[in-house]
């Protein structure tokens, strides 16, 4: 702050409070809706304060779900989402840190080409190659499996670049010392590089977990059996009712459950989250 202007500060507070309210509004409305019974929506508008059905609605969704929409219990879909998010996050970190290690600490023919192959994935988001990628996964027999949900998404140029950057800033003396002490490349990797990149891995994990949990198009395509539905992709199937109104109180309970894990991760690991966000965009 440059000078003391109480009026301006008050205005800034007002803007921020308005911003917080606007940002929180949809979630508040969803939460309130999820605490009411089915008849509370008949009157025309959604109530603005929580009702008495919180425990009942959430227990019902977690345990049995909305069977009329053909979706499994929400608890099960959350488990699927968790498996997918963890596989994607850990898979991306594992294969990227190995690639970055190879690219930074070795000189070999076609190194540049390998680097470019990885770089190109940045330019090919799943949305632009939907149909052929689906055909490949179907051809490999990976539809309706956790492998099909996660493996096609774990190639990562951004994660590789991040680790490359981290390794490039590490002093050369580390390798020299390791070699004098007789350590081979894998021992150096395991005992020196891995421990030194721990915070970067944690920050990246936060970002990638959110990325994995929030996947929509891919799970929608590769899961036709309800056993593998993820919560984010399943929620639309609940809101889509052919005749009549969706059971809004239950759909909104699912929406709240779908955002709970990633939002909790952002709030409780805010420092790592911001670090990961800024680093992956370098």
């Amino acid at each position, binding site marked *: *702050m*440059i000078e003391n*202007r109480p009026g*301006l500060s008050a205005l*800034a*507070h007002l*803007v*921020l409070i308005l*911003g917080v309210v606007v*940002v*929180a509004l*949809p979630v508040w*409305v*969803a939460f309130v809706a999820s605490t009411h019974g089915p008849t509370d929506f008949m009157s025309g508008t*959604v109530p603005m304060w929580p009702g008495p059905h919180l425990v009942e609605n959430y227990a019902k969704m977690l345990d049995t779900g909305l069977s009329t929409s053909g979706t499994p219990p929400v608890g099960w879909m959350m488990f699927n989402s968790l498996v997918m998010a963890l596989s994607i996050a850990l898979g991306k970190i594992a*294969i*990227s840190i*190995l690639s970055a*290690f*190879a*690219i*930074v*600490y*070795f000189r*070999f023919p076609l190194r540049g080409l*390998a680097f470019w*192959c*990885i770089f*190109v994935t940045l*330019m*090919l988001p799943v*949305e*632009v*190659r*939907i*149909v052929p990628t689906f055909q*490949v*996964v179907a051809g490999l027999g990976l539809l309706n499996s956790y492998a099909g949900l996660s493996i*096609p998404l774990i*190639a990562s140029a951004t994660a590789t670049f991040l680790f490359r950057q981290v390794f490039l800033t590490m002093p*050369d003396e580390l*390798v020299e010392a390791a*070699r004098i002490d007789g350590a081979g*490349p894998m021992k*150096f990797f395991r005992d020196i590089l891995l421990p030194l990149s721990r915070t970067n891995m944690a920050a990246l994990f936060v970002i990638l977990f*959110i990325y994995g*949990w*929030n996947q*929509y*198009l891919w799970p929608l395509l590769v899961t036709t059996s309800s056993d593998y539905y993820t919560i*984010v992709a399943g*929620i*639309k199937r609940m*809101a889509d009712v052919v005749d009549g*109104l969706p059971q809004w109180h239950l*759909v909104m309970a699912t*929406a709240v459950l779908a955002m709970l894990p990633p939002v909790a991760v952002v709030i409780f690991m805010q420092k790592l*989250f911001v670090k990961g966000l*800024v680093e992956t*965009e370098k």
Partner: protein
Amino acid sequence: MKRTIFSNQLLPWLLLAPQLAITFIFFLWPAGQAIKQSFLREDAFGINSSFVGLANFTALLDSPEYLNSLKVTAVFAISVTVVSMGVALLLAVAVDRMLKSSRTYTTLLVWPYAVAPAVAGILWWFIFNPTVGVMPYVLEVIGYDWNHISSKTDAMILVVIASAWKQISYNFLFFVAGLQAIPASMREAAAIDGAGPVRRFFDITFPLLSPTTFFLLVVNIVYSMFETFAVIDATTEGGPAQATNIMVYKVYFDGFIGQNLGSSAAQSVILMLIVISLTVIQFRWVEKKVEY
């Protein structure tokens, strides 16, 4: 570049193998297939396909539906970018004035980043729902009859709000970081010279923020063109009357539901060219930042 390296020749390939295998099988090969497919046309039964040159592309450019989709994408991407960046900049400038409370406000503003685009779509779909929603009720009071199921404009506004809402927190974090990187001495000097807060913002803060703004511009355009697929699918499904049928949604719809593989592949190729150019712009920018 490292001065000291290991001399193994086989090991680096083993280390790269998983990444390269996935890249090849799930990225490069399908992309190649899309390019190949875009020059072919399948018969009605999908058994034979023949080489048709650029016919799929010329057919697209002659199709009013595709031209409409281009226009819709442009309107949508620009609106989402302007709304989310505008709101985020306003909030970031406000937070930048705060000393003690900035951390609290930041926490309260960043969490929508974690909400899935599909869930964001469902939330706003519910709020604006013509029968049970809160907003149509409020809008009716001021005399506006909201209905995104029949009105093209309302549908567009809905998907723009849902997509922009989710992106505000991301832009906000980067703007805050950008503002903190501006030396306080510059603004102090301007203040001593008698420039008021508004003048200081436009003459000093905003120009010095331009690297962040350019970066966010590219990121937001990419976001609104590709990642918003889920917002569209969870809410309007491209309707009403194609009013929100953005390009990524059309690729999916024509390829999976319409089963028109040649046309869908040609659309994929056009989208690839767009992503490639946006990525090149982004990386050129990273190399020589816009600075004063």
